[in-house]
């Protein structure tokens, strides 16, 4: 097995050149928003709504920034602590989402400073929003957080984009999919009316249609990169993904994102074609679940060096959507309907897998069963997060059922996305060392059970 990087950078664990270049997109979003503020163009603070809200907002001319992404940015650059302390002193419970606490603290500072980002704010700071785009999907924080921010931006309305989240069995009940899509489309129409009223301008549906097509194109290419990652040895690792996900998750409608993914694809393909592994001496192929400890990403590089562990695939929800069969689009011309399909299909795409393995929910969980097979994984590294708790609610359940049904074991390493005090690196390494034996044991178990890898 050839290896391209003899020594893994302990700072980030990134192995792809394109991953090192991806920070451009986070900075671009922040810079564009500050520029929009200077030019008097509208700025929205947005949740990831899995594209439905963002595509429409940008098509009508809103510059979006993502406080979630800003939270990760602040955590990685050491700027979060100050914001967290302010959030605490404002009376918000310390158990809330770390990203939200970061942005609450920042919002308070922005509000106190007459809505000019304070001197030294990470990345230049987030510009003042005209409105908030909240999301009903994935977790409660995604709308409660922005509702709370209204305290600091009294005139900025909050719009919550909802998404049906049926159980797996209920998803398959006759007519539910069609009725859910109808709900989403009508809900999006209300959202368009809200934006048009707020901004005093009309949505250009042709532009939206172009942007939606561009988004599908980018996401399809991002998915192709995911497919390349099934190769053994793994051509890229989790630390690479956490960087390259920014363009497809936040800016899939930006042609630059597509151009970027062409480069990512070429780089990853070159490795696959030449059987080049992202880490030297890959011995164990791991799935990683939920967000990583941004402040300690070097941990993954250490895992590679010490144990030959590669994170070959990670948290389903941040990945591009699986391709939607073309026949599903037959007769669909309304871009709002395409947007609705994009988001709804993303959140229900693994329901068939959930049925196959008799597990629930289809989202957050069932994907790991498919990942385990497709990526020939030896284990699951579960990372419950103190301050992104809902994302971790299904982790133990996922770990238990993967062990029972696919003989793929899991290990739990407690940590956080923001608060570095929660992550005990020494203890984590001890657990991972012990996990090596567990994975070896389960390799034998899989063999005995006739499981293919």
């Amino acid at each position, binding site marked *: 097995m050839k290896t391209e990087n003899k020594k893994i950078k302990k700072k980030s664990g990134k192995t792809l050149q394109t991953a090192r270049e991806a920070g451009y997109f986070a900075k671009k979003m922040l810079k564009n928003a500050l520029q929009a503020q200077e030019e008097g163009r509208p700025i929205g603070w947005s949740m990831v709504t899995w594209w439905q809200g963002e595509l429409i907002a940008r098509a009508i001319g809103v510059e979006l920034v993502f406080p979630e992404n800003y939270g990760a940015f602040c955590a990685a650059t050491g700027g979060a602590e100050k914001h967290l302390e302010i959030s605490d002193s*404002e*009376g*918000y*419970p310390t*158990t*809330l*989402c770390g990203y*939200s606490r970061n942005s609450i603290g920042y919002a308070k500072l922005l509000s106190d400073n007459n809505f000019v980002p304070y001197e030294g704010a990470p990345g230049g700071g987030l510009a003042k929003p005209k409105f908030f785009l*909240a999301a*009903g999907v994935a*977790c*409660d*924080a995604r*709308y*409660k*957080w922005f*509702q*709370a921010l*209204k*305290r600091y931006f*009294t*005139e900025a*309305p*909050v719009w*919550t984009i*909802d998404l*049906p*989240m*049926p*159980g797996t*069995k*209920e998803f398959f*009940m006759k*007519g*539910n999919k069609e*009725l*859910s899509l*109808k*709900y989403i489309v*009508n*809900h999006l129409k*209300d959202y368009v009316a809200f934006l048009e009223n707020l901004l005093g301008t009309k949505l250009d549906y042709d532009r939206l249609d172009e942007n939606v097509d561009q988004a599908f194109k980018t996401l399809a290419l991002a998915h192709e990169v995911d497919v390349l990652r099934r190769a053994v040895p793994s051509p890229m690792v989790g630390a690479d993904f956490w960087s390259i996900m920014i363009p497809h998750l936040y800016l899939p409608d930006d042609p630059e994102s597509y151009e970027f993914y062409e480069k990512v694809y070429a780089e990853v393909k070159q490795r696959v074609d030449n059987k080049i592994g992202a880490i030297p001496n890959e011995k164990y192929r791991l799935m990683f679940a939920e967000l990583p400890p941004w402040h300690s990403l070097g941990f993954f590089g250490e895992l590679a060096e010490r144990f030959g562990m590669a994170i070959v695939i990670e948290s389903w929800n941040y990945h591009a959507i699986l391709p939607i069969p073309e026949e599903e689009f037959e007769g669909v011309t309304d871009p709002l309907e395409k947007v609705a399909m994009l988001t709804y299909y993303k959140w229900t795409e693994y329901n068939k897998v959930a049925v196959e393995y008799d*597990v*629930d*929910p289809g989202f957050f*969980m069932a994907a790991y069963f498919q990942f385990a097979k497709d990526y020939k994984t030896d284990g699951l590294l579960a990372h*419950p*997060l*103190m301050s992104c*708790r*809902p994302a*971790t*609610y*299904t*982790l*133990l*359940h996922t770990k*238990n*059922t993967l062990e029972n049904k696919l003989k793929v074991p899991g290990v739990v390493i407690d940590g956080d996305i923001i608060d570095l005090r929660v992550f005990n690196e020494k203890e984590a390494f001890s657990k991972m060392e012990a996990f090596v034996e567990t994975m070896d044991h389960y390799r034998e178990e899989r063999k005995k059970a006739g499981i293919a890898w």
Partner: protein
Amino acid sequence: MKDVNKKTGLARAKDIYDHRNKRARELKAEGKKIVGYFCCFPPVEIMTALDFLPIRLLGDMDEPITVADGYLPTVMCIFYRSTFDLGMKGRFNFIDGFIGSHACDAAERTSYIWSNYIKTPCNFFLDLPHVDKGEAVNYFKVQLNYLKETLEGLAGKKLGIEPLKEAISLHNKQRKLVRELYYLRKPDPPLINGSEVLQVIISIMMIPVEEGNELLQEVIDEVKTRRDIPDKKIGRLLIWGSLIDNIKFTDLIESSGLNIIVEDTATGTRPFWHDIEETEDPLVGVARHYLQEVKCPRTFAETDTSYREDLENRYSYLKDFAKYWKINGVFGNIIRNCDIHGYEVPAVKDYLESLGLPVLIIEQDYSTASLEPLRTRFQAFSETIG
């Protein structure tokens, strides 16, 4: 012949509260099917109309969480961890149907996980929109229809419009009686204390609606004429926030210089404060009621143009409560890791303090073992009111 040994009124409520699954088990033995549900959102009217006994699935602050540790992470809502823990220990092993709901993240994820491990002949996950306007009501009505169809499968019969209307009427009567009971807390001191009310509310969530209505009427009649009314305390307390389902907690509060007067919680006013509108298609009224009238911060209220107006839109009912019941202090109860209420804390404080009401916020661990240290905080709070 009247059974002279049969407990009535408050004594009966206490008995049901103390043995809260007893009646359900008795009815189960007689052939009735029991359906357990999460939070305030699965419509009990549909369950009643199909001749099921709906019972609210609650946790137990007295029971250490042990089994759930292997399934639900410690960082999640302790109430739902406790409820799941009880489920895994067989506390609800008599139920025929489980109705989970998308009340909040914890309820939602626990619902899914529950159905993986705690098997019942029937289970359903009720998705509930986070917004309450426009198409959301129609979407929710569709989900209610799926719930109805699922329960019809368990019942082995179709649900007609008339039985549903009758069940709505029975539950509306219950809501009216609960409000009547709450109005008895207007005098100072109130005619009934917080622990007694909690026993009644928990009880009616565990027995058939007809029996619950009979119990409520008995309690109202008894309380109206009772002589042993609660002592007058310094504080007339509104409780807002996460639910309370154990009287050791309310006893502690009320022994700290505070009369509990009204509870804006999921085991207080929220399930009972509004009647279901009678509509031609009864599911329309049911959908509107649960989505728009059950006041829980899990449902997003559209923001208006200013923060003050937003607060007014979200909390003006608390002002009405405070005014009617002459409230002089508010306890914001947050079960640790409850995001739904946690995000509200500064806003609800802003609003209530603007009304001149002192507010005490406590995050607690949903365990009677950790209650006692809270006593000094309630005592200090009552002194600030005084």
